[in-house]
């Protein structure tokens, strides 16, 4: 599934570690304006000022001095796959990206290490005023629009790794959907981190204007090396009054990856934010998407699954803050652990006093496939309104003997029965994904289960 690419060509690889010189060098190579460099330098100061998290999985193995923060492939951004260098194109062909674009996507962005190598959008969306480009181009072509939103959803001070992100960010996507425009086919950005001992720090900024709608898909993968890689991307989402945004992610990082991604959405009046998330890869993941429901009647839903195998510690969850009146949030989380892997659901629901008549429902189901794995559930609720309804339910257990017995009585082998139950357990998430991604996710589950129950 995750293969090493053909020997790649790089135009530039930064020195390992993080210094002011490296940050200034990245900015100079990108030809950025001073205001962008100022943000990078301020973030660098924050990175040094902020401490490492004192909770969650241990990050002791991660040493920023072993990581190259900027790796530029020997290719500029193209809008035609034929112009993308063969060795890079091969990688994306193997991942099925050009075919997916032809079949059912409205636009595609493909990032290889630190730079976007391909970006394209269907003509009909351009004519409707939809902007979908790589983030570096957006800084040049739409500076006023970017300035209005950049760092406003996820501030530099959020945590140490977001400060790192802002200091060395490179690549990512920018999407603007104008008022009332419905993008009926999904847009997709795919992030491939190929270089060993390097980091990927893409920035994704999406603005869905009033009454507009969009489905955005994010895919991630990397080949496996013996040394650690780091992914510290940032996703800033703005859903304006009456808008709808679905953000789907299937992450399949290699098992030498520290995935410390930050995702946050600001959801205005009558707007809807939906998150669909599948986390399969990485050595350690700390990933907690967040919705802030600032407008009255804003809604959010999170549907996520994580699957931790040997040597993996996936610490994931969802955070929501209710500020507006009559706001609603629903969280469905599923996790599977096997082979000594550890999954943790770590979430937050905060209902402010202003969020009258608001409601929140959180449901966590955890399945352990053997007796050497671990599964923790750590949900926090912070309820400050007398007029809000909150409920949380969680379950941890193994595959039911009764269910296996029933399926075996219908002629299934024990291993097939178990695999069927696991796929059924994951189905609330896979059914939320476009068909092709649901198939991919089931394939990932089968791969993860290989040698265990099949």
């Amino acid at each position: 599934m995750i293969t090493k690419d053909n020997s790649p060509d790089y135009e530039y690889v930064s020195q390992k570690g993080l210094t002011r010189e490296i940050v200034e060098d990245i900015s100079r190579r990108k030809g950025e304006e001073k205001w962008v460099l100022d943000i990078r330098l301020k973030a660098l100061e924050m990175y040094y000022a902020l401490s490492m998290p004192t909770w969650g999985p241990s990050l002791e193995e991660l040493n920023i001095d072993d990581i190259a923060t900027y790796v530029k492939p020997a290719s500029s951004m193209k809008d035609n796959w034929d112009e993308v260098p063969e060795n890079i194109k091969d990688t994306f062909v193997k991942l099925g990206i050009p075919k997916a674009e032809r079949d059912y996507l409205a636009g595609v962005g493909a990032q290889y290490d630190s730079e976007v190598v391909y970006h394209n959008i269907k003509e009909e969306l351009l004519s409707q005023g939809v902007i979908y480009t790589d983030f570096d181009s957006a800084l040049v072509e739409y500076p006023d629009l970017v300035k209005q939103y950049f760092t406003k959803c996820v501030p530099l001070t959020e945590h140490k790794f977001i400060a790192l992100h802002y200091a060395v960010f490179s690549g990512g996507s920018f999407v603007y959907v104008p008022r009332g425009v419905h993008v009926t086919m999904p847009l997709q950005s795919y992030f491939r981190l190929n270089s060993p001992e390097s980091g990927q720090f893409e920035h994704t900024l999406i603005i869905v204007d009033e009454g507009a709608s969009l489905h955005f898909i994010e895919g991630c993968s990397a080949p496996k090396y013996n040394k650690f890689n780091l992914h510290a991307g940032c996703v800033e989402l703005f859903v304006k009054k009456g808008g709808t945004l679905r953000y789907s992610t299937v992450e399949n990082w290699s098992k030498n990856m520290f995935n410390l991604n930050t995702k946050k959405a600001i959801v205005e009046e009558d707007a809807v934010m939906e998150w669909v998330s599948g986390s399969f890869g990485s050595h350690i993941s700390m990933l907690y998407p967040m919705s802030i429901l600032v407008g009255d009647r804003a809604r959010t839903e999170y549907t996520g699954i994580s699957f931790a195998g040997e040597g993996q510690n996936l610490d994931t969850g969802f955070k929501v803050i209710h500020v507006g009146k009559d706001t609603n949030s629903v969280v469905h989380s599923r996790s599977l652990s096997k082979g000594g892997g550890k999954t943790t659901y770590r979430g937050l629901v905060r209902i402010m006093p202003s969020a009258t008549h608001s409601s929140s429902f959180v449901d966590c189901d955890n399945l352990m496939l053997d007796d050497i794995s671990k599964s923790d559930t750590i949900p926090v609720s912070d309820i400050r309104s007398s007029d809000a309804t909150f409920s949380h339910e969680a379950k941890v257990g193994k595959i039911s003997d009764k269910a296996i017995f029933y399926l075996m009585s219908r002629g299934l082998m024990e291993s097939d029965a178990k695999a069927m139950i696991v796929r059924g357990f994951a189905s609330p998430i896979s059914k939320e994904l476009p068909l092709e991604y649901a198939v991919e996710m089931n394939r990932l589950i089968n791969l993860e289960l290989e040698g265990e129950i099949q």
Partner: protein
Amino acid sequence: MRINMTPIPTCQNYLINDFDIKENLIPEFIKTCDLCDNTQINIDEKCSKLLQIKENYTKIVDLLDGDNKRLDFSFDNSCDQLVENIKFNVADFSHCSVTISYFAKSQFFHNGLLDFSVGKECHMSVVILSDVSAVDSLDLLSIKINLGEGSTLSLSVVDLSKGSTMSKRLEIDTPHDDSIVNIRTICLAESASVDYNYITRVLGERNVVDMKSVGALSHTDKHFKGCIDFKRGSRKSVGKEKEVCLILDDESKSLSLPTILCEEEDVDISHATATAKLSDKAMFYMNSRGIDEKEAGKIYLISLLSSLMIDLDDKVKEKILDKAGRMMYEN
């Protein structure tokens, strides 16, 4: 000073890992000892060190079959500080009960350690009542329980606090097989800060842990941290955790962290938390039967409390129901 850390800390800005105690509530004799330099001490460490420094009530209580022990502590002007260390040894095959009550109407400081060692095949009922109404008071209590094989523990914690800062830490270990733990907590708090940190470590096979908590808050900050930790080897064990909290005004805050830690696949664990209010439908029904909003709220709260009062004597039940009714009518 921050105390009563959860077994697994979560993100700092969730404000629930530990509990903040205002400096002015800490008596001078504590401020002068070394342990206050550490801002992350849990109550137990602190308590055990404190006891060495200033302990004014130490007792070892041996309980046999049929014993019903009652201990009442009242704070007043002549006695406004209590640092107690009480160890209960329960003999094998005993059916017994312990009721410990704390009463206060004026400013006090309390830091207690109750240590229960329960033998095998016992039926043990423990009731801990705090009926304290005193501003600028600090009420700390640590409870440690070690259960023997095949024993059943029924623990009722009743807090009727007004004006005080209260923190309770409960640690239960079930190292043997076939034990049953029922923990029932009632918290009716007004103008108070309350913090619960319940940790149950399930080590043996076929153990059952059932944790239930009902609270009603008026001008109160409440933390509830309930952790059921299923260690490897706790096969066929069952864990249930349920917390319901009514917030009676917008100045109150309920922070909850019902944690499940699981290293054993062959267990059955579930937890649920809710901040509840009477549904519009139920309220409409009550109104249509001539019951006004306040009375409907009172009936609802009492219905939540009733299943948690089974081990309490009538006098305590009456106190709870009186306070519940008054709180619903005053808000």
